[in-house]
């Protein structure tokens, strides 16, 4: 997959975007590498009763408490099978670490910045608010996640409540 970018040799490194490719449902997403602190397998997530829907729970990441946000629920997708734990992207926001739980994590992709296209207007608005744009890969589309929007909305919605 990493050899897919062909005609971009003349572009300098600064013009390239690097993404951690993740899958949420059937869709391939890219999370900008510079926003991801680490990737980890979420273990023993503590369910928090009465928490907002998107909050999957809290977990212990080397002595720090991480708030796990379920990307599927944010995207309005049906929950994963119980047997699948998924993977988590660690994101730091302020003093907190959030873990964005996705189905699976793939390799790191580099795409020229210039190839990022806006999300078509007829796509669901909620979904669109969490996606910065789309890259056309050979076989499928890579939607670029707006990580802070995915996490931030939870916090903001909560404030408004």
């Amino acid at each position, binding site marked *: 997959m990493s050899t897919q970018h062909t005609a971009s040799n003349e572009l300098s490194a600064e013009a390239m975007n690097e993404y951690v490719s993740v899958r949420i449902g059937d869709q391939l997403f890219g999370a900008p590498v510079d926003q991801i602190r680490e990737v980890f397998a979420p273990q023993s997530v*503590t369910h928090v*009763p009465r928490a907002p829907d998107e909050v999957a729970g809290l977990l212990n990441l080397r002595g720090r408490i991480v708030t796990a946000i379920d990307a599927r629920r944010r995207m309005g997708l049906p929950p994963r099978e119980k047997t699948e734990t998924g993977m988590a992207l660690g994101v730091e926001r302020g003093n907190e670490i959030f873990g964005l739980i996705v189905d699976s994590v793939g390799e790191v992709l580099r795409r020229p910045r210039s190839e990022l296209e806006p999300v078509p207007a007829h796509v669901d608005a909620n979904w669109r608010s969490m996606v910065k744009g789309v890259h056309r890969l050979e076989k499928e589309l890579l939607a670029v996640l707006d990580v802070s929007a995915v996490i931030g909305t939870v916090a903001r919605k909560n404030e408004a409540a």
Partner: protein
Amino acid sequence: MDDLISEFLTETAESLDVIDAELVRFENNPEDRAILDNIFRLLHTVKGTCGFLGLPRLEAVAHAGETLLGKFRDGELKVSPPMVTLVLQAIDQIKELLESLEATGQEPEGEDSALIGRLEDASMGKLEGAEQAVPEKPENWDEDLGRELRPGEVSLADLEAAFNNAEVDPGMAPEPVAEEPAEVQHLGVGDFDPELGRELRPGEVSAAELEAAFMNAEADPAVAPAAPAAPKADFITADMSQEEALQSAMAELKGGADANHGEGGPRVQQTVRVGVDVLESLMTTVSELVLTRNQLMQTIRGLEDDELKGPLQRLSAVTGELQDGVMKTRMQPIGDAWRKLPRIIRDVSTDLGKKIELVMEGQDTELDRQVLELIKDPLTHMVRNSADHGLEMPADRAAAGKPEKGTIKLSAYHEGGHIIIAISDDGKGLDTQRIGEKALEKGLTTHDELERMTEAQIHRFIFAPGFSTAAKVTNLSGRGVGMDVVRTNIEQIGGVVDVSSTAGRGSHFSIKIPLTLAIVSALIVGCDEERFAIPQLSVRELVRVGAGSEHSVENLHGAQVMRLRDRLMPIIDLHNVLGVGEAKQTSDEQAAFVVVLDAGGRNVGLVVDNVLDTEEIVVKPLSESLRNVQAYSGATILGDGSVIMILDPNGLAGEIVSAMDEETAATSQSATVTELDQQTQRLLLVRAGGEEPKAVPLALVTRLEEFDLSALENTNGRRVVQYRGRLMPIVPLGAEVTEREGQRQPVLVFAENHTSIGLAVDEIVDVVEERVDLQMSSDRQGVIGSAIIKGKATDVVDIAWYLDQSRAGEIQRRSASRRRKVLLVDADAFARRMIAPLLAAAGYDVTPSGGMHEVKAIAEAGEHFDALVGDPGALDRIRKEGLWADLPALAVTDWPEDTQAEGLTMVLPRSDRGALIAALDEVSQEEKVA
């Protein structure tokens, strides 16, 4: 920023705070040389250091201030408030300059000639020769010490000179500082001495080092007890390097800070200055260590390995000690948070023209610095409030027969794992009426509720969000940030704040806060599949319910309650609150635990499945995304590495407490005050819909009757029965009362003024004589509240409500004439709530009150009444106070024959309601004629 500058900033900020407080002290004790010397020395050091760091603006201001102080010290000028204000202004200016120095690393542009001019003018005063900035010094004045030499003392300069000239024999070197030989061991040898302009010879000591040694010797109380403040002024000389000079200055500052404590004898402590962040990270590390220890203990608990147990026990003990030790490093005396207060009070008194004395007790009480930081602002706000709103103007105070000078007293002490801080003033107290009006205006309560509230309950409105009583916004407070913010801040750190106030006598605020926030011990409980932590501090006790336990959870109209030592306690089920698993049925088969929580001073029971463990936990703040879930106060990581939520008792109780009338608190309060006045009531127990019994005070029931169902007729949509030649309406006592075909319907008949009504019930159960202690009041119509009667939770029926119901549509009695006003005084809340509606129904305006303090407040508000009704004791006290002496006083009691009628217009049996109303009609009528 330059390290030197940042250290200078820290030191100087502390010195300035000390100067602030000392100046205020000095103003009150202008004769106290020790204070003035201390101030002078501190300011002088600030000036000196500024000079060396190349901060001309700061230096100039400090110099001008110092000059003025010098005049005080030399007795050339008298100390007066304007003078002190001027010096304080100079201090403020220095603080401002320092702030911008801190922000930018640069001294700000501009100049302070106006302020300096005023300071200089003040220094010149009227005295001749005052032009000279530096006062003339006595012959044996010592520049280094900043004071005259005492007999037998030698000036440092002389000593140095002698020392330098003497070409000391190497073996004799320690002699000049023989008092402190150990110090000399550390002194460098063979260094270049800038002052001498050459390298030191073996055995020689540089002047700077000598000074350091000298200073240490001075600071030693055993050596120089006479010089606690050890003023050592101009030892910084021009030919020292900046670095050296600064270090000396720092040492001086530190010495000064120590000396400052030494009012009752110098207290020299060996201290090391450590950055807060170092302590914080140490704390975090220790917290992790504690957790790991816990984890290890948990693992080992299941094992039978004696070899591990010994070492582990030691590890545990050492960890505990380490934890205590680290905690101690975080402890600071609360006086640190109070340091700014004398200055604030001074400013308030100057601005408002009030005379205020600030008394502080228990400054040494220590608490965690994190807590200290968090309460600093609320405390300042409250003290300001007391000064601004609490205390009256001197003239008003004199008129009220109080000393002109008002007192604000701050005190702090330890109690259990808490620290209690009290702020009290002897001002006018809270304005109950005004607070009540404001609460109504803000929609925080209703007229009805307000009427039933005690004074204390009304006072608590000041903590309600958006509540500010200041009639006029002053410079000091009332800027929209009120006591609600104070409360929020205090509650955030797990504290509680309360107020009590007596009109004309002052208010008393008390704050109870935990000593530390970092590590708390917690109870781990299980609910369904999940675990939660409850801070031990809020757990009062644990009760097992169900399966073979004597306790059980009962249902009261859908709400859960439990009997605990003859009181009813509201119960919440954690399953319901959190929406997890199946709520426990109150069946006896399944055992469960009730955790009795202290939620804002009242008991609330929390049903959980299991109590698992107690553990020390490190509280971690809640994630941003969970902050709105009221049930939690934080999260923590347990010994086994799992994350669990920490329950917030106040948040949980919030689910039900708001629904619970504050009356509970009021009842218990008046019950403790007047325990002896508690009387038994004869009660009729009936069943009317449902299994739970209901109680009706027998005194109110005229007759018990049974009617054939066939006798009941319908007219105009109401059930009526022909009774003694009249139609009597029949009202079911509760909606679920059923009429059963072929059976006779039991009815309670209430007669009043030729009209009677009947209340239909299912069954008349019993008549009991019990002390009625209303445990929970109710907002359900027709029910006064619940009480334990014959060991069962029982609703007490509000007969007055039913009487009103049946009379709806009838012509109001006395609607034409003026409604007469009655003051009802009865310490017994039950009696009050029984009598008040009856009098109201008879056409009186009733003001109920529970105790003398309320009565006094009503009297002070200038309320007028036509008659007093109440228990004999209360009426007697009112008579003794000389309040409403000309009014008829009707005593109502269960034992009229045992009651002294002296001073009372009439003594009536409580059971005879008709007689009371008749008597009241009579006396208030007489009153009108007279």
